[in-house]
């Protein structure tokens, strides 16, 4: 039972990361109906930028590690957000009326380009965040050996804050209403006086900015990364978004947590169930889950069935 609880906590933390990255996918899909394959690499750029800042500019501030990390996170969010807006402007906007195939190729191209830059910047090696970053925060002991490390508390707190904040923003504010309107119908939104291009730009700021935040958090949590992080982690976060029902913010969060928890559980309990090399199968879980859920619920867990227009 204690291992189960501990694994659940670990899974929740990882699920939180998946969820924050998945939010970016789901928001973009919501307004553009586009699978933004470049999102994973933008998120990886967040990790990379965070590493760059923490090891150079902010290297002297590491004594105040929480503040340093917070400042870095904010700078990275702004940077990745602007990067996202640029990519939308350059690679997606000219193709908005060009069918379904061309934007996918364009997105894959953007992903390749981002990845190549990251590979050359990081010299294709594993890079590590500064040693001992945020490790001295108070832990929380629940009972026996079960507990949350200080880092986990922080990560879960930030994830929760981001999700709730985003949900409130989309549901309660005027701009959020405009976003929901754009995701329903571009032309009608335009008739209602909404500047559709600006809303899409905003979505392409918020989504990648969240990805950048998740990037810094993952770098801090795991300590090391390389340039393929975007493909692997990004693809799984996208699957999380689909699991919950893409275009749906609570769905992305739910999908992220389901994915994170089931991955941790498979690694923890796989050997008991006869999987010899359970960690090697960890990556397959996401895909199996995806297929299982989509066969039974074709639009994801919380996805609405859209009636086809005739």
């Amino acid at each position, binding site marked *: 039972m204690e291992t189960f609880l501990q694994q659940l906590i670990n899974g929740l933390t990882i699920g939180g990361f998946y969820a924050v990255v998945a939010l970016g996918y789901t928001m973009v*899909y919501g307004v553009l*109906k586009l*699978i933004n394959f470049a999102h994973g690499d933008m998120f990886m750029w967040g990790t990379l930028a965070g590493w760059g800042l923490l090891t150079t500019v902010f290297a002297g501030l590491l004594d105040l590690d929480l503040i340093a990390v917070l400042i870095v996170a904010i700078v990275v969010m702004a940077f990745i957000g602007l990067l996202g807006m640029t990519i939308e402007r*350059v*690679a997606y906007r*000219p*193709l908005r009326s*060009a*069918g*379904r*195939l*061309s*934007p*996918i*190729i*364009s997105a*894959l*191209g*953007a*992903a*390749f*380009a*981002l*990845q*190549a*830059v990251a*590979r*050359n910047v990081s010299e294709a090696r594993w890079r590590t965040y500064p040693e001992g970053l945020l490790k001295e925060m108070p832990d929380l002991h629940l009972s026996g050996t079960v507990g949350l490390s200080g880092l986990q508390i922080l990560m879960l707190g930030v994830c929760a804050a981001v999700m709730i904040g985003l949900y409130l923003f989309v549901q309660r504010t005027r701009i959020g209403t405009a976003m929901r309107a754009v995701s329903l119908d571009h032309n009608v939104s335009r008739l209602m006086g909404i500047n559709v291009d600006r809303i899409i730009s905003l979505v392409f700021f918020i989504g990648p900015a969240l990805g950048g935040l998740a990037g810094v958090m993952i770098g801090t949590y795991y300590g090391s990364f390389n340039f393929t992080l975007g*493909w692997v982690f990004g*693809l799984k976060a*996208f*699957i999380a978004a*689909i699991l919950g029902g*893409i275009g749906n913010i609570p769905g992305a969060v739910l999908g992220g947590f389901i994915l994170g928890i089931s991955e941790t559980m498979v690694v923890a309990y796989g050997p008991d169930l006869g999987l010899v*090399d359970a960690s*090697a*199968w960890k*990556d*397959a879980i*996401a*895909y*199996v889950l*995806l*297929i299982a859920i*989509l*066969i039974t619920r*074709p*639009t994801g867990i919380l996805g609405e069935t859209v009636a*086809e227009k*005739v």
Partner: protein
Amino acid sequence: MDQALKYVRRPSSHLWEIGLLALALALPYMSFMDRSRTSLAVFAGIYVMLGLSLNVIVGYAGLFQLGHAAFFGLGAYTAAILSIDYGITILATIPIAILVAGGAAVLVTKPILHLRGDYLCIVTIAFGEIFRIAVTNNVFGITGGSNGLFGAGRPEFPLPWLEPVPAIMLAIILALHLLGTRKSGPVLQWGGAAVIATAYYLLPLGLDRKPLFVVSMAMGAVAVIAGAVLRSNRASARVQMIVLVGIVLAFALGTVLGAETITGEIAYSMDEYFNVDDPTTILGVEFTPVAFKRDARPYYYLVLGFIVLTVVGMRRLQNSRLGRAWLYVREDQLAAEAMGIDTTQIKLIAFAIGSAWAGVAGVLYASRFTVVAPESFNFLQSVIMFSIVVLGGSGSIPGVLVGTLGMVVLPELLRDAAPTFMYEGAGPVVILALILGFYLYHAQDRLPAAVLESAAIAAAFFLPPLLLGEPALYVVGILMALVMLIAIARLRRRTARYLPWVAGALAVYTIVLLAAGGSLGPDLSDGVSGFRIMDWRDGLMGVAMVLMMMLRPAGLIPERRRGIAPVTVEQPSEPIPTAARQQTTV
């Protein structure tokens, strides 16, 4: 006006196909082809097969498939396992590979076909990844884990003596070509075939056999092409004639220039190509088993044969009842359903055919490389196949060829090349001429603006490396030139008035810089060592993908739309007679 509507699709003359095929047959004997390039051609050929097979799913039926590498891998693994563990001749495993890959496709896609486009896309990715992970983890204990399988067999079959494969292929083309004959021309066609046959089987009696291949290939190509030209002797025949003469001339020139190399090449290749010691005599003709060994040429002809077979098959498929059903489903699923097409069944067939044919490509891959490892079938390979289809123009067969050139051949050639070749020696002059020519061709009446714009592009191209001398900046220069190209095209609509001034200023700047810096092509040999284009290859490919989609969203060679479509009637372009004009003014 009764000419306003007519069938867009005209009976084709197969002219381009014949020319291309003649070139393809001669390719391994061209002077610039060495061992590694022939290998590359084989590799690219396998990707052409994959692109053609994926084209059925993505192009014809309009479905997403980003996990095609899995079925490619299934074919390769089937061939390798059967060949290693059961000792079956590798090409004999093709039917089994078809069954395995096609059957797996049916099993796997049946439950997910009801998903909408993007969901289907992600599920196909999932299947591809599950395949890779399963194979890496050696799931049934027969896939060899992450190292893969070694020692798949090579093809074996006896073929007639002397460079037989091109001759057989040519005979096949001629047969195919003649089957479609409607009017004149067959005399020359058969004449061509006779010439080739003579060249292959009679001339060796009296001549030294070494230069013979060259002679016979050239003669055969000339004969085939001449026959094709005479057959389609229509209004535009002159243009076709010029093109074909060009092809023939290029071919002849290539063979003449490369004759020394070719004869030398043949002399050593004879031993590798054939097991000369081990001939068998059937009906008085001496047969020698073709040895598929280090020399890639036998593989080249094998793969080429499969490609021809595939292209012919795909053509016929596209124009069949099934092909038309795919077209309906792709364009409007609801309407297709209303017409009584079982859309689920049709899509399933598309997946089955496409995947089964990817399995065939897998067998060819296993037989060529003899090593089958999981990393050859990962998500990146699926993405490359998908890009081949979409970049070339989904649904279009020539598009697949062009897409393979762009996605497979070009990156491999870039492996050795450095961008400095564009900056050194005669390179800059050629590039300047190209830019200028391109612009003048498109400009027509706006000559000064076009000159200035091209100067601006040239400036963007040359400035970064000249200013700073950093090797990495060559790439920046190339990219900047590309960006300029697009920016100018977009700006022209809005700020056409100011653009020439900006461009002019840039041009003057460049000229000053060039004058100050000395020669156009500086000696860059020192700076090259630190920079490897390999590192940036994928990035350049990505940028190129984005740019391509912006410039040609439907692909390089879009599929020709079929059916009845309005054709614009050309207005008589004669000027109004001056007499009539004078009358109105008076």
